[in-house]
């Protein structure tokens, strides 16, 4: 075998891992494939790799949006960020929002999908109406919910009054404003998770349900023993997507609160925006971004460990 390969290498004048392919076309093929990849690679390098590297550099400078500054200041920005109570509060707000929103967004979408898949008539109508809010732009849902939460004439307070309860300043009261944003966000994005769950449920072979009913299993039994176990992979996917989406909290909160710096809802992304684009401190803003980046990496590693353990089991 070795002789054949080396003979071949002598004949073609080059070493090849695949001795049965002529040299020319393969090289050409590689070029073509790189050419097809080029548009993506250029965009990837320009808009992802470069900003990440440049952002790290910026975080060590006192660069301002106004063009002033730009001198290296070492770890001063990081030191300031780690001792900045507003930074920690914003980071906590983001984490708190993620906890508050992920649980209902996963649980509700599962319930909605189960109802549509098994029980309710007129499936297409439910599918459409559950998914429709997801199609709206964040500006639109923000406006809708600002009106619903209006303390004087909003629907939410009208419902409270009809129930004989005290009206609330939903978005303005620091005790309720985060909850209000969670409610609006759940209404807005639950449709996407619902659709993923519904697709996963419809992939479960109907024969299993038939067999189960022949064995005398009721609807609940079937749900617990057939549906739920087979939704495992879908749930992991939905959880990951949902946590990442919730960590990005910014636009709906910013728009619903009209940009008021509320200590109870200011997310870390909003604080990055405020530092960079309102207070013009690019260097500081970049440093906070990398503190947040560290948090995301921790979550990513934790999630990778959890999924690996699942696979091993």
């Amino acid at each position: 075998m070795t002789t054949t390969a080396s003979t071949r290498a002598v004949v073609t004048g080059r070493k090849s891992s695949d001795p049965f392919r002529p040299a020319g076309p393969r090289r050409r093929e590689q070029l073509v494939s790189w050419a097809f990849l080029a548009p993506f690679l250029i965009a990837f390098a320009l808009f992802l790799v470069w900003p990440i590297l440049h952002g790290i550099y910026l975080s060590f400078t006192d660069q301002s949006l106004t063009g002033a500054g730009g001198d290296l200041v070492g770890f001063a920005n990081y030191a300031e960020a780690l001792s900045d109570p507003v930074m920690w509060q914003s980071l906590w707000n983001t984490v708190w929002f993620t906890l508050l929103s992920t649980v209902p967004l996963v649980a509700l979408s599962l319930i909605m999908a189960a109802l549509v898949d098994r029980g309710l008539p007129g499936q297409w109508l439910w599918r459409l109406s559950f998914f429709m809010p997801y199609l709206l732009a964040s500006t639109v849902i923000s406006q809708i919910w600002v009106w619903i939460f209006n303390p004087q004439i909003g629907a939410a307070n009208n419902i409270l009054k009809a129930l004989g309860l005290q009206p609330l300043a939903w978005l303005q009261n620091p005790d309720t404003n985060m909850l209000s944003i969670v409610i609006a966000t759940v209404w807005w994005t639950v449709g996407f998770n619902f659709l993923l769950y519904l697709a996963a449920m419809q992939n479960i072979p109907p024969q299993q349900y038939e067999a189960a009913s022949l064995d005398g299993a009721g609807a609940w039994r079937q749900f617990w023993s057939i549906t739920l176990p087979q939704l495992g992979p879908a749930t992991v996917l939905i959880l990951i997507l949902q946590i990442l989406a919730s960590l990005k909290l910014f636009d709906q909160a910013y728009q619903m609160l009209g940009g008021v710096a509320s200590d109870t809802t200011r997310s870390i992304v909003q604080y990055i925006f405020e530092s960079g684009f309102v207070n013009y401190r690019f260097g500081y803003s970049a440093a906070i971004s990398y503190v947040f980046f560290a948090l995301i990496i921790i979550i990513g590693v934790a999630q990778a460990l959890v999924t690996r353990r699942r696979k091993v089991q």
Partner: protein
Amino acid sequence: MTPPLDLSRRQFLTAASLTAGAALLAGCAPGTASGSPTQTLQFWHLLSGGDGVTMSQLLDGVNKAQSAYRIRPTVLAWGTPYYTKLAMAGAGGRAPDVAIMHATRVPGWAPGGLLDDWDLDRLAELGVDESTFPEPIWKKGIVGGKRFSIALDAHPFVLMYNTDICDAAGELDSDGQLKKTSSPEEFLDQLRAVGGSAKGHALSYGYLGDGAQMWRLFYGLYAQHGLAIELPAGRQMGIDKDAAVETLAFMKTLLDGEIAAAQNDYGTAVAEFATGKSGMLMTGVWELRTMQNAKLPFDATMIPTLYGTPAAYADSHSFVLPHQAHADEHRRDLTYRFVSDMLKGSFGWAEAGHIPAYLPVTESPDYAKLLPQAHYADAAQHVVYDPEAWFTGSGSNFQGEFGAAVQGVLLSGDDPGAAIDRFIRRVNTLLAQPNPADPEGKWK
């Protein structure tokens, strides 16, 4: 015979992409060069809604009146988005020829070299100088001894009142204007009287989730004590805490659910007054058009002087020269001319509610007949702006921070002293940070 376009598919695609690329690059090329008869001047502003319509009319007017220049306006969203873009254009040295800024934002910008200063001699030749502006408005445009902004107007926070309701309550004097009150108690009595004849509340004041609205009323009343908040860079905020607490407590008194709704946002308050349900509205002059369109019987006046010193919280839309790396002298000349034309034509701007800064306009007999504008024109002599610091001014975080600190007092009766302390702490944190436009403090 060769076909007219003998290209292979590849050649064609190459040629097409090159053409597209060239067109894209051409789009980046700078505008018309100096020398052609009519110059197009780039003008950026942040006025939309009713103000935007009025501004377009004024611009049409100055464009038609001469042929030396043509203004090409660019309108950007009010607040942070506008200022971010203008700052970046100035930082790149390829800014528009002229732009509108709030006078309160100028002190934060001037040190970074984002703005070019105005030449007073060139302005004086065009009839624009110190004598043609109310003193506080003229002074506001000076930073570090140089003139960086020329005010188009002052837009104070005022008191609008429904003349039918106030008349029924017996609170109008013989001229048909609101009776003067000069202490918090008198004003509260007047409000209670007005409340008796209004269907809704005596007063509409929207503040929820709106730091600017809370700050406007607060700082106007605080300044009526003859005081000002000092924000020295790198040091601590200078504030008279007793006066601040008194002012905040008074604001809370208004929001008792009887005089004014305890929980109102800006839009709801404006709607309450515009539909004739309430007797008075505390708002900026820019809502004048809204009330005129609602066909409401109303008049407007300065916020009554309750603590001794007349003061009207205001800001000014001002003309600035964003920094251009290679300013063309001829275009600069035309820019000066444009600003002078606008000031002289600012009677139209008064119709939008704003008080023109240019005195020959407000001192004209026509203006005296323009009601209700003429009834609050005296506010221009008593304007009080945001305290100066790089982080203050309209559309900045400062007013939002104030709102975050004190909203609990107005909404749920939290302790005013604790709220003011919180505001002081937060502002001191900002004071400790360097001005990002001048991080080393080299300017001046």
